[in-house]
């Protein structure tokens, strides 16, 4: 992102176990896309689960703050942001652009994207296809097990009892949505509601979330990037503020080699 807040390059890549190597790879790609030398980057903020493993980042900020920034930049009137990723689900309460309260679940795969991943693989389906399948459903099957592991077992037996696939998949979507919405309700939901994260790409989930929340939800065109965009904005703000004051900004060395974990 440049000083004017224009985005020049975006990269999304699957996080494996090796956060650090990945961070380097992503950085290389994004620099190549923007066709910039590394040193040109004034400030780098790392966020998300692996934020501690971005050796070249000048600062680490949690995904909650970054998501807030990112979402607000896209939807200035947002009051509630819901982010469902593969690892966790978050609800953010936002008041004039600032994060004032939040809830999150990262204890349990149920109610996260992981839930869908695990079960999709058990059903031999692609996660991307789940949404469209679920929309075909006429009466969704109620999935009683909370734990992903047992929900998977339950799904298999439902199928063996001859329940139609789409109804089960719809049931799964509903299971996540109801869990997340129950959690988010602790924030006292009010519009505008924005839905982000990998799961927000799933049309079925978007529909179920609307049904469960009983209100409209907006989804940015690239729901995976809101956190990164927010981080970039925060980086921009920090830099501009320091420049205005004429302060020197401490920066990490711009190096992309394998670094061993700092201890």
């Amino acid at each position, binding site marked *: 992102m440049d000083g004017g807040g224009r985005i020049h390059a975006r990269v999304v890549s699957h996080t494996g176990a090796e956060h650090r190597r990945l961070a380097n790879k992503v950085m290389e790609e994004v620099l190549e896309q923007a066709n910039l030398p590394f040193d040109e980057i004034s400030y780098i903020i790392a966020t998300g*689960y692996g934020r501690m493993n971005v050796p070249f980042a000048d600062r680490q*900020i*949690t*995904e*909650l*703050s970054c998501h807030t920034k990112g979402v607000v930049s896209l939807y200035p009137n947002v009051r509630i942001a819901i982010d469902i990723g593969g690892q*966790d689900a978050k609800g953010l309460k936002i008041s004039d652009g*600032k*994060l*004032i*309260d*939040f809830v*999150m679940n*990262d*204890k349990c795969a149920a109610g996260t994207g992981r839930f869908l991943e695990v079960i999709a693989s058990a059903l031999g389906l692609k996660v991307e296809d789940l949404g469209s399948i679920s929309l075909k459903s006429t009466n969704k099957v109620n999935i009683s097990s909370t734990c992903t592991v047992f929900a998977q077992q339950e799904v298999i037996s439902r199928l063996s009892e001859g329940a139609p696939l789409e109804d089960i998949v719809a049931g799964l979507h509903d299971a996540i949505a109801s869990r997340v919405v129950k959690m988010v309700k602790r924030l006292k939901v009010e519009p505008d509601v924005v839905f982000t994260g990998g799961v927000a790409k799933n049309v079925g989930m978007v529909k179920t979330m609307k049904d469960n929340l009983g209100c409209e939800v907006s989804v940015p065109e690239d729901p995976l990037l809101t956190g990164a965009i927010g981080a970039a904005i925060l980086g921009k703000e920090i830099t501009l503020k320091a420049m205005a004051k004429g302060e020197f900004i401490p920066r990490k060395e711009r190096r992309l080699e394998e670094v061993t974990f700092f201890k």
Partner: protein
Amino acid sequence: MSVKNRNKGLTRVREIYQDRSCRVKELKAEGKKVMGYFCIYSVLEMMTALDLVPYRILGDIREPITKADACLPTVVCPFVRSCLDLALKGKYDFLDGVVFGHVCDVGEKTAHIWNIYLNPPYFHFIDTPHTVHKAAVGQHKELLKEFKKTLEAFTEKKITAVGLKKAIKAHNQQRALVRELYELRKPDPPLISGIEALQVMVALVSLPVEEGNELLEQVISEVKQRKDGPQKKPVRLLVWGSIIDDTSLIEMIERLDANLVMDDTCVGSRAYWSGVELTKDPLDGLAYRYLVQLKCPRTFREVTFGETKKDYMADLEGRFGYLRDYAKEWNAKGVILQSVRYCDIHGYEVPGVKDYLDHVGLPNIYIEHSYTEAALAPLRTRVQAFLETLG
């Protein structure tokens, strides 16, 4: 003076924190009897008065629970399970006896299970009342008389009024010293970190009262002088909730951009804020202090009790007003409400505390942990985000 000498007290504190039983085992070798007690409702003065060494039973957040599952279900307080687990693994074999108060359901059942499976030479259960009615205080005094009887039978000594008053003075002095220590957390940056403070508190429940007092005096004087105290951080925090007997949670918080300057938790300030009044019959002062003045959610306490109309806010004010005062005096900007998983007595309190803190405008966050180091990792994000909302 070398750093080591300058921080002699804190070094001793760390020694004890790392090997809690080291001192009491020495004392046992010298022929003293060591009395394990569970939670803060066991009346320490009565043990001290008989020259017994009270030693608080704590868990070990680093030790996976394996043995306890055979006699306690897994869906109960992991702190209690950990305590029992250590005992079943023989780590509390050096205790000459154990004392349990009726602190909470799990504590109470564990008392019986402990007695059955470990069969200690001395065992006493105080059925501490759960309300603060006048009648309940009288009942509590009667219960302390029984405690006195069994202690005297076990030690074949008598508790004299003089001896008991002496013990009360010693423990009151410890409470006063702890409050003095906490005073040193008021400056910004605090003169002593949350981690160090907790280590001191853990040391105190692992030593005879006099030795604890000496150690406190030493720590207080050296902390006042030292130059290598905590750094200034953007946020000062107050922490409330269930027991914290391991520094890892506090470390997680202080590693982030915050100083933990005050607490209302067990092992922390909770057991030290109120002293015992020296009444004509010392048992009156003890019965009152240990039932009415100790403020743990295990006791039913309602400001509007006995009124025919209920006023929720007045009730909250009466129950949690002290938290606002703590925040004010220690200049804390936010409150971390924390509870170990499956703790009912704290669980029921949470929405009320939140209602109150929101009402008085103190930002707060509730985190629940399962008494394992690992479970802290995901909590870090919550706490950091909370700090970011404050900053």
